[in-house]
């Protein structure tokens, strides 16, 4: 018998057996792959069912309208029987503005609304720099939501028209020339400060002028004196401007051309407005400071290295609460009595330092992951230190550090609830305590915490998803 074999007809492809495809395969592999796993699946399903069975009636019986907890209870008893439990969401309905704005004057609510809207506009060119479609969708959504939100709060009609036109204009700029929006991002910190706290328009303009002065000094002196000296002179000039000249110029400009908003004191801030002011400004400032600290820690220059290490290790070694107490109590002792140093500003500075120290270590990890050849190639091409850092090192190091940086940011945002210990009315404990002290809502327990928790979750989950999007976008190794 010979081994010769010749195939006369080619076999057509066939579907895999029914147990190896589709839903059946997924269930077999993921839920019932062994007796142990089958048992765990059954137990898990039972536990989830039990929890839902316990909490679902409470959620379904929820009441949205009412003026007190007793009204809620009466309504639930009338609809679902005397023993039925139910959530009293009416509390959120009644205290919504307080959770969002704290004690901000109600006739000025349009200012925080506009600030929040401009924040998204300012973030668009940074978050979605190369995705025009997403940027346009985001801008359109922000414009529509802002106009709706402004329609709900008190404001003069002409101002409403002006703001609506402004938002539409920004949307138009964003779709036609997205690059221009970066100016909104650059001006945003000063605009926000003015919108939220009010006062003379000249104060933020003079603060901005200090930064312009710094940039001018740097660009004029860089060629002649080198990077380090030019930066140092620029910083000294800006500080002198802020401390000595800026205030006087702002005051005289205000006398000549008075223009300003009604001032709002810091103790009127509260709720999510406060959380977002502290969280967003700390996040925005702590990233660049963290980068500089990480570079300082890598530096060959003894003084810079020692200062960076000292700062990072000190800040990381001290609990945030300690620093907040320092901000609220101790700092005032060290300053001259006539200096009024705003409490929110002090808290922002210390929370920023705290997160900058953590970011510095995360970014240092990213720097360490970079092969030495990358630094050498940048050097060999003749790039100077800052060019190499900006164009070669940081894009790669930050990309590696994205999960860590976003974790730090999420942690920071949730830590803003700790400012309750220095007497600021953040939403979780501050506003909730106030609400629960009200005779109408005495005895309410779960609802405010669930509500505040849900908003924090939404913000943190958003950051987390954005970081995943960014990681996918920056992935260049294999497409």
């Amino acid at each position, binding site marked *: 018998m010979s081994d010769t074999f010749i195939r006369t007809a080619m076999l057509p492809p066939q579907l895999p057996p029914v147990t190896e495809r589709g839903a059946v395969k997924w269930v077999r592999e993921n839920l019932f792959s062994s007796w142990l796993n089958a048992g765990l699946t059954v137990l898990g399903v039972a536990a989830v069912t039990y929890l839902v069975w316990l909490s679902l009636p409470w959620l379904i019986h929820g009441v949205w309208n009412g003026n007190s907890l007793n009204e809620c209870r009466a309504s639930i008893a009338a609809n679902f029987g005397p023993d039925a439990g139910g959530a009293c969401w009416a509390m959120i309905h009644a205290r919504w503005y307080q959770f969002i704005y704290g004690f901000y004057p109600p006739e000025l609510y349009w200012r925080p609304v506009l600030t929040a809207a401009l924040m998204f506009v300012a973030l668009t060119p940074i978050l979605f720099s190369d995705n025009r479609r997403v940027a346009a969708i985001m801008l359109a959504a922000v414009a529509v939501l802002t106009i709706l939100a402004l329609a709900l709060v008190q404001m003069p009609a002409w101002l409403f028209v002006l703001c609506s036109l402004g938002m539409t204009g920004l949307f138009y700029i964003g779709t036609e020339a997205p690059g221009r929006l970066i100016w909104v991002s650059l001006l945003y910190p000063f605009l926000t400060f003015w919108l939220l706290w009010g006062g003379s328009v000249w104060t933020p303009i003079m603060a901005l002028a200090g930064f312009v002065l710094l940039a001018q000094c740097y660009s004029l002196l860089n060629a002649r004196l*080198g990077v380090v000296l030019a930066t140092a002179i620029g910083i000294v000039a800006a500080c002198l401007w802020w401390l000595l000249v800026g205030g006087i110029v702002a005051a005289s400009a205000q006398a000549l051309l008075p223009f300003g908003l009604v001032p709002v004191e810091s103790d009127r801030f509260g709720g999510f407005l406060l959380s977002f002011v502290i969280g967003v400004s700390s996040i925005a400032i702590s990233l660049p400071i963290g980068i500089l600290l990480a570079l300082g820690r890598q530096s060959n220059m003894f003084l810079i290295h020692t200062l960076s290490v000292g700062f990072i290790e000190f800040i990381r070694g001290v609990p945030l609460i300690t620093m907040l107490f320092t901000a609220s109590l101790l700092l005032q002792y060290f300053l001259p009595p006539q200096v009024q140093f705003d409490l929110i500003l002090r808290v922002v500075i210390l929370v920023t330092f705290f997160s900058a120290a953590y970011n510095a270590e995360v970014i240092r990890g990213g720097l360490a992951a970079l*092969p030495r*050849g*990358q630094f*050498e*190639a940048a*050097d*060999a*091409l*003749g*790039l*100077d230190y800052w*060019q190499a850092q900006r*164009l*070669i090192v940081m*894009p*790669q190091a930050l*990309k590696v550090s994205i999960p860590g940086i976003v974790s730090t940011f999420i942690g920071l945002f949730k830590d803003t609830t700790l400012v309750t210990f220095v007497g600021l009315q953040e939403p979780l404990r501050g506003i909730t305590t106030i609400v629960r002290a009200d005779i109408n809502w005495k005895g309410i327990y779960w609802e405010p915490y669930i509500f505040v928790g849900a908003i924090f979750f939404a913000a943190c989950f958003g950051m987390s998803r954005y970081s995943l999007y960014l990681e996918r976008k*920056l992935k*260049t*190794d*294999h*497409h």
Partner: protein
Amino acid sequence: MANPAPLPVTDEIAIQITAMNKWYGSFHVLRDINMTVARGERIVICGPSGSGKSTLIRCINRLEEHQQGQIIVDGTELTSDLKNIDKVRSEVGMVFQHFNLFPHLTILENLTLAPIWVRKVPRREAEETAMYFLNKVKIPEQAAKYPGQLSGGQQQRVAIARSLCMRPRIMLFDEPTSALDPEMIKEVLDTMIELAQDGMTMLCVTHEMGFAQAVANRVIFMDQGQIVEQNEPKEFFNHPKSDRTKLFLSQILGH
């Protein structure tokens, strides 16, 4: 790889190294190095590993600092003065063993980055130059890809093109083919041979003796941080003088 046509070498001095010494900590890596490279010269540096040959060419663009002696590149002496260092680095191209392309940038961006930021060339012009050199290394179709999507040989040719975009007067090669698969070595060597025929001053650390015989006009053999023997390729390979050289050659050519 034979290229019988003699390549021009001028009298002009490109690199002058005098009584140069370097230590890593207390380890004396380079000992009393003296060499002069004329413009248009193509020098191959070989030697056993740890002999200091890579360190020597890395001193020429100050990726490594020397502690004693003098290195003058294109009339500029290398000292701790950052301005001189940047000037020399923009005149001297370097190709690394592991390519060191920037993985977050496309091939085209890798090529245009330094011209735009260091030479302040307008973007359009930099892109034209980049495409010219990508054509020269025969991979213009890869311009929009990222380094991670290219083969090793292609990456090394991109790295050569990246250096050339800065219009350097001197090229340094630090074992450009030792990280490559055998079938990719040839494409890189062919690129280097073409470059030599264009009259580029080249210093090349390599064990590719075929390349040395084809284009080098001088071979330098180093051992234990010093120059042991240097000669024109034919003499060097056929009649090595020192015993150390003979041993080395028998080891690398023996099989």
